[in-house]
């Protein structure tokens, strides 16, 4: 038997407070991202009487997604798919250029953990006080501090879960319903689950989510190369480390500042590690120390590992932009941009009137008693405007083929209510002597037209003859 247990208790991490430019940048990013998250559902947007006036709304019930002036219908889900692919490529681009910037600055786990640590520090004090409290016995003071902290955490967690549901329905109405306990159980359930996960992940699981639960640290290794700019320790400058009076030659005075501020609880001087989220707090901490002992900043820094030989030799390193602009990042950018341009193009050629034609091919054609040949089509008409529309249906080769709308008594016109899709069965008939009746396949285009607004849409399909 081995002498050590197979299972180890979690080593809590008590990051120390730090000041510096990256810390400031992170505060700003936290403010902006949280601001966007909490405030977006409350932006109003006037779309007219029949449509919701929430700027960003995922309307599951009527299957619409509203984003300011853009309205996405379910059949346009490719926009969402495209945006997800762009998000993925963007992550690849940033990771190959700048390492785990996403993890260090904008990942929700990082942002909320940062917020939770801030609260913890306000209530229990900085690192040393927290370590003492952790090891101290459970007396009144410890209970008071712990409970206060948990209550504040819980409040943040509730606000987090609460903000999420506002994206899915009219925010002011929901807030009122939540208040008088008449909202849908799904809303309460969602808030409960998100509250629990926020509280546990931000308060207790913290760096363990990044290390064990998140797949990204494993994938990122494949995304980075020696040219990637990442947080690293200049060991050629820092070693051999030691306290000042020990007369060591390196710049690192082994003050442990970089270790004490690290929210992941690692020592960046050990080299690149999977756990490092490149949050740059160790850079701030060490730069501060370097300032105090009168050495240049940058013992820990954002740098490309490929620069090491040059720096060791004392020759100038490759400029940052040359690290960032390399074939790989340019390729990612090109792919990202082309998908973006494609989506924008698709967005601008969209009309608020659409039709989709699905030919019924069981059977492919129906012979009429007078020898005429009839094809059946199911036509889906979408009126994306906020007003009802009268639509007129026609064909390109009107003289040869006749068109009838099921259940409309010879009318070729139909009214579609605002913001609706209707399914209309349409019969197209070729008289016995028309070429289309005997030809194998004839091309055909359906047109739909709003005569009042002078808007048209069309779709091509085919007509099957007797052959």
């Amino acid at each position, binding site marked *: *038997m*081995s*002498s*050590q*247990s*197979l*299972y*180890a*208790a*979690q080593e809590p991490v008590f990051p120390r407070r730090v000041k510096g430019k990256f810390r400031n940048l992170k505060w700003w990013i936290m403010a902006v991202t949280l601001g966007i998250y909490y405030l977006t559902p409350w932006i109003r947007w006037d779309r007219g009487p029949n449509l919701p006036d929430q700027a960003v709304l995922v309307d599951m019930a009527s299957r619409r997604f509203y984003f300011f002036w853009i309205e996405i219908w379910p059949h346009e889900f490719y926009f969402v798919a495209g945006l997800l692919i762009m998000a993925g490529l963007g992550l690849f681009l940033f990771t190959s250029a700048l390492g785990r910037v996403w993890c260090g600055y904008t990942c929700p786990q990082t942002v909320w953990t940062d917020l939770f640590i801030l609260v913890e520090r306000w209530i229990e004090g900085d690192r040393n006080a927290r370590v003492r409290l952790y090891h101290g016995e459970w007396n009144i003071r410890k209970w008071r501090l712990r409970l206060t902290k948990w209550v504040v955490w819980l409040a943040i967690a509730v606000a987090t879960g609460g903000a999420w549901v506002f994206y899915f329905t009219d925010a002011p109405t929901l807030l009122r319903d939540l208040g008088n306990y008449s909202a849908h159980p799904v809303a309460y359930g969602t808030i409960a689950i998100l509250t629990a996960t926020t509280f546990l992940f931000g308060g207790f699981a913290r760096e*363990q989510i990044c290390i*064990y639960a998140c797949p990204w640290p494993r994938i990122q290794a494949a995304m980075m190369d020696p040219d990637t700019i990442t947080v690293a320790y200049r060991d050629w400058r820092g070693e051999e480390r030691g306290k000042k009076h020990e007369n060591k030659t390196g710049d690192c005075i082994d003050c442990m500042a970089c270790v004490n501020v690290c929210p992941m609880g690692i020592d960046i001087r050990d080299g690149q590690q999977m756990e490092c989220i490149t949050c740059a707090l160790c850079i701030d901490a060490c730069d501060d120390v370097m300032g105090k002992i009168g050495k240049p900043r940058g013992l820990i820094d954002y740098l490309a590992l490929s620069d090491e030989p040059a720096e060791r030799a004392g020759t100038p390193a490759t400029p940052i932009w040359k690290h960032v602009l390399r074939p790989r990042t340019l390729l990612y950018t090109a792919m990202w941009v082309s998908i973006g341009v494609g989506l924008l193009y698709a967005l601008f050629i969209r009309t608020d009137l659409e039709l989709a034609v699905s030919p*019924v091919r*069981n*059977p492919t054609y*129906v*012979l*009429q*008693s*007078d*020898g005429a040949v*009839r094809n*059946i089509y199911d036509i889906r008409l979408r009126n994306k405007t906020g007003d009802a529309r009268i639509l007129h249906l026609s064909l390109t080769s009107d003289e040869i083929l006749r068109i009838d709308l*099921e*259940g*409309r008594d010879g009318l070729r016109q139909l009214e579609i209510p605002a913001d609706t899709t209707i399914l209309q*069965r349409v*019969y197209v008939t070729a008289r*016995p002597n028309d070429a289309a009746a005997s030809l194998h396949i004839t091309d055909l285009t359906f047109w739909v037209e709003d005569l009042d607004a002078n808007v048209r849409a069309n779709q091509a399909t085919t007509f099957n003859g007797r052959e």
Partner: protein
Amino acid sequence: MSDLKVDEETGVETTGHVWDGIEELNNPLPRWWLWTLYACIVWAIAYSIAYPAWPMLSGATSGVLGYSSRGEVAEDIAAHEAKNQGLVVEFAAVELAALDPASDLNRYAVARGGSVFRAQCSQCHGSGAAGGVGYPNLLDNDWLWGGDMDNITHSIRHGIRNDTDDDARYSEMPAFSEILETEEIDAIVEYVTSLSMPEFDAGMAEMGTVLFQDNCASCHGEKATGDRDLGAPNLADAIWLYGGDREALKYTVENARFGVMPAWGQRLTDADVRAVSVYVHSLGGGE
């Protein structure tokens, strides 16, 4: 233990497992991970007590929560039926011929009739209702017994030429092989062919005309355009239930045809019969 090895680089014991010279370090798992595993085991046991899980000799344990997927389906069906209750009542009262094609009620009837059709009628008439040889195509505008809503409903409810329903539509064509000579039958076939085909033997057809008037016109009409009261097909149009070439026609005249459809009024609820009528009427051939 004596064979305990410690890795020099990290100072961690190894498990003794070596692959290609790579040794496995004995790093402990986090304890919370262990507790998560225990929690999952407890959960699994509780779950298998709460829900149907353990196989027994016949069936399985039923679980203390009394859940069954069959029960869930039944609940779903009941919920949908409750939701449709208003439409069901309305549908029972409505005059089918006066049903507004753009109404919710019509949509309900077509959807309900469509599912009845797929379950009961598609075996003969095809999933797309295009029929086949001997089974009428319900999409075209040719109707043996009439294609308005009332006639369709009557045909479905009572069926055709069955002997289980007294109101079934009934007619029978004699087998002319016992009545006429082969040559005479050939002449009739030639006459019928001349009604819809460009190429025929004029002499034979003329002889057939006379024979047709004597033997066939009483049912199929003087101009061979059929008679819906008897379900006698129109022989002058483009649609043939049993085939329109000379061979098929000859077989029909010699042996006669006798298509049977069951009386669905005896097997389906009245609402289902009405719904499937609406569905058939909506397929494009309804009059």
